[in-house]
C-alpha cells in the first residue's frame, strides 16, 4: 500500500519534471542567447584587443591591457568624473523632490489623481520628442532665454549649448522625466504610515518638522532604500537621454561613461576596449549596491 503511494508520488514527480521542462526550456534558450551569452561575451571581449565587432574571430587575449589603458586614458577618466558628477546631482535631487511632492500630494489635496498623473506623464514620454521640445524651449531664441532677458539677466546661460551649464541642464531634464516614479512609490508608502502614530507624536508635543523627521521619514525608510538603489542605477544608465539631448557635447561637456563606451565601440571601433569600460561600470554598480545593502541595517526600519 505504502509502496504503491510512493510509486504514484514518484510518477507524479516525473510528470511534473516533464511538464516543467516543456514550460521553461524555450525561455531558458532565449534567455541564454539574448541575456546570458551577451553578458559573458562582454566580459570575454574586455580582455581582448578586438577592434571591429564584425571581426570577432580575430580576437587576441591581452590580459588586463584594456583596464590598464583605461587609467592612462584622460578622455575616459574625464568621462568617469562626469558620470560621478551626474549621479551626485541626479540622485539627491530626484530623491528630495520625489519625497516632498509625495508628502504634499498625500496631505489630502483635491484632484489627487489628476495631480499624480501630471507628474507621472513625463516618465512615459518619448525621449526623442522630449529632446526636440527642450532644444527649442531652451534654445537661444526660446522662451526661457527671452524671459531671462526680459527680467534683466545680462548674460543668460545657453543651457544645453553652454559647456558650463549643459550637464546640470541634462540632469534637470532627467529628474523632471523620472521623478514621477519616485513620487508615486513614495505616495504608496506614505499612505501606509499609520495616522495613530502621527497623532500620538502630536499629543506628545512633536511639531510638524519633528513629526516628519522622527516619524514619517523612518517609517518610509524601506521605500527610501529601494528608491535610492534604483535611482543610482538609473543615474548610470543615462545613455539615451544624453545621446538624444546633446550627444555628449558641446565639446566633451556631457560625455559621460555610457556615451564614451558607445563612441569607443561604434565610432573608434575599439570593441575590446569599450567592453572593458562597460565591465568597469558594471563592477562599480555592483559595489555600490553591495555597500548600500550592507549599510541599510543602520538606517532602514522594517
Amino acid at each position, binding site marked *: 500500500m505504502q509502496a504503491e503511494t510512493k510509486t504514484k508520488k514518484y510518477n507524479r514527480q516525473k510528470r511534473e519534471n516533464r511538464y516543467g521542462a516543456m514550460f521553461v526550456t524555450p525561455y531558458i534558450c*532565449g534567455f541564454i542567447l539574448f541575456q546570458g551569452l551577451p553578458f559573458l*561575451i562582454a566580459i570575454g571581449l574586455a580582455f581582448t584587443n578586438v577592434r571591429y565587432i564584425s571581426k570577432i574571430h580575430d580576437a587576441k587575449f591581452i590580459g588586463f591591457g584594456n583596464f590598464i589603458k583605461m587609467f592612462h586614458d584622460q578622455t575616459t577618466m574625464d568621462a568617469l568624473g562626469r558620470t560621478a558628477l551626474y549621479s551626485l546631482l541626479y540622485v539627491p535631487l530626484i530623491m528630495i523632490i520625489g519625497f516632498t511632492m509625495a508628502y504634499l500630494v498625500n496631505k489630502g489635496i483635491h*484632484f489627487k489623481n489628476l495631480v499624480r498623473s501630471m507628474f507621472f*506623464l513625463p516618465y512615459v*514620454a518619448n525621449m526623442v520628442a522630449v529632446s526636440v521640445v527642450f532644444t527649442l524651449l531652451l534654445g537661444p531664441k526660446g522662451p526661457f532665454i527671452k524671459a531671462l532677458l526680459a527680467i534683466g539677466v545680462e548674460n543668460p546661460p545657453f543651457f544645453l549649448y553652454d559647456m558650463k551649464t549643459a550637464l546640470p541642464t541634462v540632469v534637470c531634464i532627467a529628474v523632471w522625466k523620472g521623478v514621477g516614479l519616485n513620487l508615486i512609490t513614495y505616495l504608496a508608502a506614505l499612505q501606509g504610515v499609520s495616522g495613530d502614530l502621527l497623532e500620538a507624536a502630536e499629543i506628545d508635543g512633536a511639531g510638524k518638522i519633528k513629526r516628519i523627521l522622527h516619524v514619517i521619514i523612518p517609517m518610509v525608510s524601506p521605500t527610501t532604500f529601494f528608491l535610492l538603489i534604483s535611482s543610482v542605477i538609473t543615474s548610470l544608465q543615462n545613455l539615451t537621454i544624453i545621446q538624444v539631448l546633446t550627444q555628449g557635447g558641446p565639446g566633451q561637456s556631457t560625455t559621460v561613461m555610457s556615451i564614451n563606451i558607445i563612441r569607443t565601440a561604434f565610432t573608434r571601433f575599439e570593441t575590446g576596449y569599450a567592453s572593458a569600460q562597460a565591465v568597469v561600470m*558594471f563592477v562599480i554598480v555592483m559595489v555600490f549596491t553591495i555597500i548600500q545593502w550592507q549599510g541599510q541595517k543602520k538606517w532602514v526600519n522594517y
Partner: protein
Amino acid sequence: MSLKLRKNLRSWTVTIILMVIGLLCIYPFIFMISSSFKISADVLGKPLQIIPDKFILSNYTDLFGDPYYDFAQWYKNTIVMVVTTIVLKVFIITYTAYGFAKIKFKGNGVLFLILMSALMIPGDIMLIPRYSIFKNLHILDSMWSLVLPSCFDIYFVFMLRQAFIAIPDSISEAAEIDGCHHFTIYSRIILPLAKPSIVTMVLFTFVWSWNDYMGPYIYISTISKQMLSVGIKLFTEGQVADPALQMSSATLVLIPILILFFFTQRYFVEGSTSSAVKG
C-alpha cells in the same frame, strides 16, 4: 467651524500650488502640441499662446508629403514591431511564468534564482555583444533585433510569476482532479485570472518598445526599416530648422503614448507601485 475652514483653505492652497507645478511639468507637451498647429513664426514668437490664432494642418501634411523622410513607413515599422513584440512577449512570458509558479519540477527554485541574479546586469553592457550575436543570427538590420531581446525580458517573468502564485493552488488542483493538464490550467484558468497583471505588462511593453531609441539607433541601419524615434531624430537634425515642423514630428511620435496614458493611467500608476517597475 473655523478650524475646518482653515483646514479647507490650506488644502486648497496646496492643491493650487501643486496644480501650478503640475502644469509646468506638462507645459513642454502643451507647447509641443499647440505649436504643431501654428505657423512657424508664431512658435517662438508667441510661446505662451496655447490656442493658435488659426489652426493649420500643413505641418502634418508637409511631414507625410516629405520626399526624403518617409514618416508613414516609419510609423508602419514601429507599429508592426510593437504589436509583434507584445503578442510574442505575452505568450512567452506568461507561459514561462506559469512553469515557474505552478509546476513543482526539480530545480525550479535554483533556476529561478539564477534568472533573478541576471536582473542585476545593466542593459548597456550587452549593447555591443548583442550586435555580434544578431549578426550571426542574421537579424541585424531587422525588427527582430528589437523584438526578440524584449520577449526574453527577465523582469516580467518575475512579476507574472508573483501574480500567478497569488492565485490559490486550490483552484488549479480542483481542475487537475477533473482531469485537466497543465496546458489547460494555464490557458483556461490562470491566464483569465491574471488579466490585470498582463494588462500592466502590455502597457509597459508598449511604452518601452515604442520609445526605444538606442536599439534601433545601433542595430538598424537601412533608413526604410528604421523606427519612428530614430526617424524623428534624423529628421529634426537634418535640413529642417522649421520649429513648427519639428513640433509636429515630435507630436507624431508622442501622441500614441499620450492617448494610451490618458485612458489607462490607473494601470500605469498601480502597476508601478505594486511591483516598482524598473526604469
